[in-house]
């Protein structure tokens, strides 16, 4: 089975949970920007959590399925339709062979994740299918989708939603979906301004109180030059009184770096493995998916929490994902 790319969209890449274990060679982790939506989409189609999904950015692709398929779309709402009918998000959707899935206007968020039952059957590079364009790793030839690409879908063991098969046959419509849905908007996707929790970073104490107060007390806007490497923030300048001599060292997903000009950058999926700018704070992992759904111009505030709180929130999120997986599995064919 293949998915044929009729139109590639603005930036559509295959991503999984990331390329771990190679950062000491300078290989970025990459992976989905919104790992939460990516994981929920995989759960809905009965995939294991390490399958890749399509990360679709702002302006989506047009895709044709050459066989019957089960898909799920989660995350930002980019108006997915088949034959003019709206395709629901946060649900498994059973499609007929020949269906053309099209995306339209961005109604909420910034990135949408499309999972297909069986996963995208492209080779793993260094243990991952994630696309990293700078070094042309993973995905389809290490790049974003292009027109006429064919995305092979992996083998899967038969019908996982027999009820949907029956409904599709009965209704004569292009696709079928269940009544139930997953609450895929955990964590308030559409909040304005968005709020992300942060933990003090390595150089928190080196910044004057005015800079720390500006970080936690004022609103920032997502700058237009934000991308998969980092989200740049316009707003109060965050400045040191005296420059710090810093030797480069590791950074991570959510590190808030402050270059000398004072415009903070939140490091995201395609971040380099090391950096040499002061690190004022770290975004709590539980809120990273909210940042991934912000687009240029959107507002963002930060709220300080402790490391212990951030870890407790993260463990609770992992528990929520387990609960979602168990709930979905009850609907799957045995």
């Amino acid at each position, binding site marked *: 089975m293949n998915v044929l790319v009729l139109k590639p969209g603005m930036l559509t890449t295959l991503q999984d949970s990331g390329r*771990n*274990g*190679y*950062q*000491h*060679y*300078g*290989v*970025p*982790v990459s992976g989905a920007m919104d790992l939460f939506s990516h994981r929920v989409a995989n759960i809905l189609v009965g995939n294991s959590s390490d399958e890749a999904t399509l990360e679709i950015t702002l302006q989506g692709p047009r895709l044709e399925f050459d066989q019957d398929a089960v898909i799920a779309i989660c995350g930002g709402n980019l108006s997915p339709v088949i034959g003019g009918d709206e395709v629901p998000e946060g649900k498994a959707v059973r499609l007929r062979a020949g269906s053309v899935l099209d995306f339209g206007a961005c109604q909420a968020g910034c990135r949408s994740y499309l999972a297909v039952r069986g996963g995208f059957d492209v080779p793993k*590079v*260094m243990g991952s299918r994630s696309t990293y364009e*700078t*070094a042309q*790793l993973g995905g389809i030839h290490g790049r974003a989708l292009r027109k006429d690409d064919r995305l092979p879908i992996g083998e899967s063991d038969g019908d996982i939603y027999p009820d949907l098969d029956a409904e599709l046959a009965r209704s004569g419509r292009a696709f079928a979906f269940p009544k139930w849905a997953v609450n895929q908007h955990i964590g308030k996707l559409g909040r304005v301004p968005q709020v992300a929790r942060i*933990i003090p*970073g*390595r150089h928190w104490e080196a910044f004057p109180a005015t800079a720390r107060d500006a970080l936690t007390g004022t609103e920032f806007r997502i700058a237009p030059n934000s991308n998969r490497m980092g989200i740049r923030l316009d707003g109060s300048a965050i400045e040191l009184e005296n420059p710090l001599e810093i*030797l*480069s*060292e*590791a*950074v*991570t*997903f*959510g*590190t808030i770096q402050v270059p000398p000009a004072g415009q903070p950058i939140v490091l995201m999926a395609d971040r*380099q*493995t*090391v950096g040499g700018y002061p*690190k004022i704070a*770290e*975004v*709590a*992992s539980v809120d990273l998916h909210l940042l991934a759904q912000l687009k240029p111009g959107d507002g963002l505030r930060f709220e300080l929490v402790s*490391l*212990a709180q*951030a*870890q*407790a929130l*993260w*463990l609770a999120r*992992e528990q929520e994902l387990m609960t979602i997986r168990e709930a979905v599995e009850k609907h799957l064919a045995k």
Partner: protein
Amino acid sequence: MLPNPRLITMGDRALVIEFGDRLDPQLSARIAAAAQHLRASPPPGVLDIVPAYTTLALHYDPAVIGAGTTPYEALIEQIGAWLHEQADANLLPGRLVEIPVCYGCGLGEDLEDVARQHGLTPEEVATIHASTDYRVYLVGFVPGFAYLGNLDSRIVTPRSDTPRPHVPAGSVAIGGDQTGVYPLDTPGGWRLIGRTPVKMFTPESEPPCLLGAGDTVRFVPISRAEFDALSGNGA
């Protein structure tokens, strides 16, 4: 004697072990040894072990580490005891990797300019560059880019003010008091003095990179004819 390492949090899924605060080959050797040791038997839940100039970072999955009082505290309990034991461990001598370089050869565009800045001939710059063994302090910036320290002070050269939009893979370059080889075609601001036919980054191989932190690098001058033969360009 080196000071005791310090543990620093980096968000809720990583921590940094700081071994010192300045560039020092002995410190770097200790970090490389610690990285190698941890990689041989990583604590469960540790996903990435990233050495740098003065630090070693561990990226971990809190859900796998699980609760002590917190996952962070559970992890540092393991690491702390181990770091203490490790303090007196023998430092392993890293590997010695020889990298053939064609200096100048129409491939190192800045060689003459670098020579002129230091009142040297291009041949002298090449000889100085190839007569030091370099330590890999850090691999980063792009996959396989090794930062090599201890450049001879006679050829220390600042980076360009305007980076080149396109530096070819294999370019051997000087950036301040460091040197390195560009593993990929990327933009870059270092001064290009030659090129190697050797691949620094081969994603489909294991390991994917020629160099790792702790290795020692020796550049071996080759002629343009040897360069062409080694890069499969024919004579």
